[in-house]
Each structure stands twice: as structure tokens, then as C-alpha cells.
């Protein structure tokens, strides 16, 4: 006689008397019931599994200290729910700054800007130094700054909405 497999027996035991469990045993399937009617060995296994499932429904014995909730609340950081500046915000902010810098570098005469901010700087050394650097950047380089910013923005958005979304519940 071919006996039922252990998996079949577990499915059968689950499907009969354990409604909340997800046994795949279909109602009205006579293949197993016919076999169980004549096979004491498989019947015994079904009963053992049923008994096991009954025993497993008991909650395991464990307990936490009486003031557990208060301890947790006491350990919470202050301003726990304030909107933090997360990594995503940082990457978005950097992208936008780079884009703005790219636009400025490409379309605006930087020396005018530097003249505008000249009262901020104590001497001419910094202004000259910065002007030299900006003059050194070729037009194509300024354009790269802009496209670089766009790409950074794209990566940040792709990471947040596509990659991270997969792992967010």
C-alpha cells in the first residue's frame, strides 16, 4: 500500500479542524479520505499532527518587565517624529544646488556676481583667486556641471521611487 506523504498528511490535518490555518487540502477530495479509511498508520499520523497543532496554539511562556512600555517611551529620542533631513533630502538638495550652480555658471557672467558680493570678502585676494578659477573652467565644463546636476537628480529620484520602494512596506 502506498502511504500518504508527510506533506499530504500535514495538509490534511490542517484542513480539518484548523480553520485559520492555510492547509491546501481541498474540500471533497476523496483521495486522502479513502486512503485514511483503510490505513491506520496514516490515520495515526494525522492524529499526531492534529494534537501537535493544538499544542502549538498555546502561546510560548515569556514575559517582559511590568513597566516595559514606560521604559521604551522613556528611551525615545526627543523630537522623535519631527521631519528629519534624511539622506534622500540631502541627495535632492545637492542635485538642485549643482543644477543652479551649472545654470549660473553657464548663463551668467560670474564676475558680476563676484562684484556684487565683494563687500562680503575682506580683500581682493579671494576675489581674484575665485575669478581665476572660474575663468579657468571652459564653457563645456560649465555645461557639464548642469548636466551632472540633472543626472544626480535623476539618480536620487530613481533610488527613492524605484529601488527603495521595493523594500518599503
Amino acid at each position, binding site marked *: 500500500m502506498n502511504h500518504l506523504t508527510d506533506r499530504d498528511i500535514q495538509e490534511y490535518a490542517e484542513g480539518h479542524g484548523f480553520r485559520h490555518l492555510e492547509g491546501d487540502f481541498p474540500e471533497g477530495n476523496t483521495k486522502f479520505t479513502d486512503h485514511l479509511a483503510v490505513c*491506520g498508520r496514516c490515520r*495515526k*499520523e494525522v492524529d499526531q499532527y492534529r494534537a501537535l497543532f493544538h499544542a502549538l*496554539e498555546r*502561546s510560548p511562556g515569556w514575559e517582559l518587565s511590568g513597566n516595559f512600555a514606560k*521604559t521604551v517611551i522613556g*528611551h525615545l529620542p526627543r523630537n522623535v517624529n519631527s521631519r528629519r533631513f534624511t539622506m534622500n533630502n540631502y541627495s535632492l538638495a545637492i542635485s538642485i544646488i549643482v543644477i543652479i550652480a551649472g545654470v549660473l555658471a553657464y548663463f551668467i557672467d560670474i564676475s558680476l556676481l563676484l562684484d556684487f558680493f565683494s563687500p562680503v570678502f575682506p580683500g581682493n585676494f579671494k576675489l581674484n583667486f575665485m575669478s581665476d578659477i572660474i575663468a579657468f573652467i571652459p564653457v563645456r565644463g560649465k555645461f557639464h556641471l548642469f548636466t551632472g546636476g540633472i543626472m544626480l537628480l535623476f539618480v536620487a529620484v530613481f533610488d527613492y521611487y524605484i529601488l527603495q520602494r521595493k523594500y518599503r512596506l
Partner: protein
Amino acid sequence: MTEHIDAEKQLVNGILAGNKDAYELFIERYTGLVGHIVFRMVDNPADREDLCQDIFIKSIVNLKDFRFRSQLSTWIGRIAYNCCINYMKKLKLPLLDDMNSEYGAVEHSAGNPAPDQIAEFNETARQVERSIMRLPGLYRTIVTLYHVDEMSYKQIAEIMQMPVGTVKSCLFRARKRLKSLLTGNKQFQEI
């Protein structure tokens, strides 16, 4: 179902608004689930409560990132499971270690159990508990989430970040091992 989601949203909004009662309700409601996962996966009693605390703190701090794409219990269960995994990795503890194969073979004999015999078996819950503790942590957790917390395969799969098929296989294997372990139990053998 909608009522359930509304209740969860209300609870989450209460916590995000800084309502202390909502904090307490949240902790009270999910202590069972978090406790089951931690107590099944972590053997050292001294570390269990600290780990439970860490899990709740992490959950509350990150609650604003919860998107209601799953049940709140699944989300917290996943945090609890990941914390336990990190704890085990830190201590280099195996998740699926080999079991000591002291359990004997199943003896087969014909006969139906009487209801009172099944009731008798309930008294052997302590032996069942001891047998569960001889299973690897992964099996223990799956068995507990399924049978005690009455979670579906899908929810367990989401918590443990594994395919539903793998959860099912682990559950079947775990219960087979448990049954084999328990055949050494006199009352169980009599069934």
C-alpha cells in the same frame, strides 16, 4: 478590513502627533508579536528585553516612513526579525544550525485517538515547548508566527523576506521534526 486599516492609521497618526497614549497602545498591541519573534530567535534571556526595547524604539522612530502597503504588524514583525538577525550576526550565531538528532523513530500503530487523549496531550505543552527550543531559530520563529500569531504564509514571507514557498517548506520541515521529537513523549506516542 477597511476598519482595520482606519484603526491602524489612527494609531500611527496618534504616534506621529506625539500622543503618549498612542505610544502605549502601540507597544501594548505589538508586544506579543515582537516578543514571540525575539524569544524564539534569541536564546540569551538577558538580551531579550533590551532587544525588544530597541525594536520598539526603532519602530516608533521610523513610523513616519510606514506607507500602509502592508499591515502594521507585518512592518513591525520585519523590523523585529531584522534586529534579531543583526543581533545573531553580531554574535556569530547560526540561524539554521544542525539539530542534535536525539529524537527517535516514529512508531506506528493503528487506532483512533479519543477526545480525552487529545485533551491529555494539551498537558504536555511543556514538552512541546522544550522540543520547539531544540529547533533552529528560523524554524521556531516560523512555527510561532504561523500557529500562535496566526499569520498567513504571505505575511511571514514579508517579515522574513523570503519566498512563500520557502516559508511553507520550512514550516512543514519544522513540524515534521517537532513530531519526531515528540514521539519520545509517552502521551504523544499513545495517540
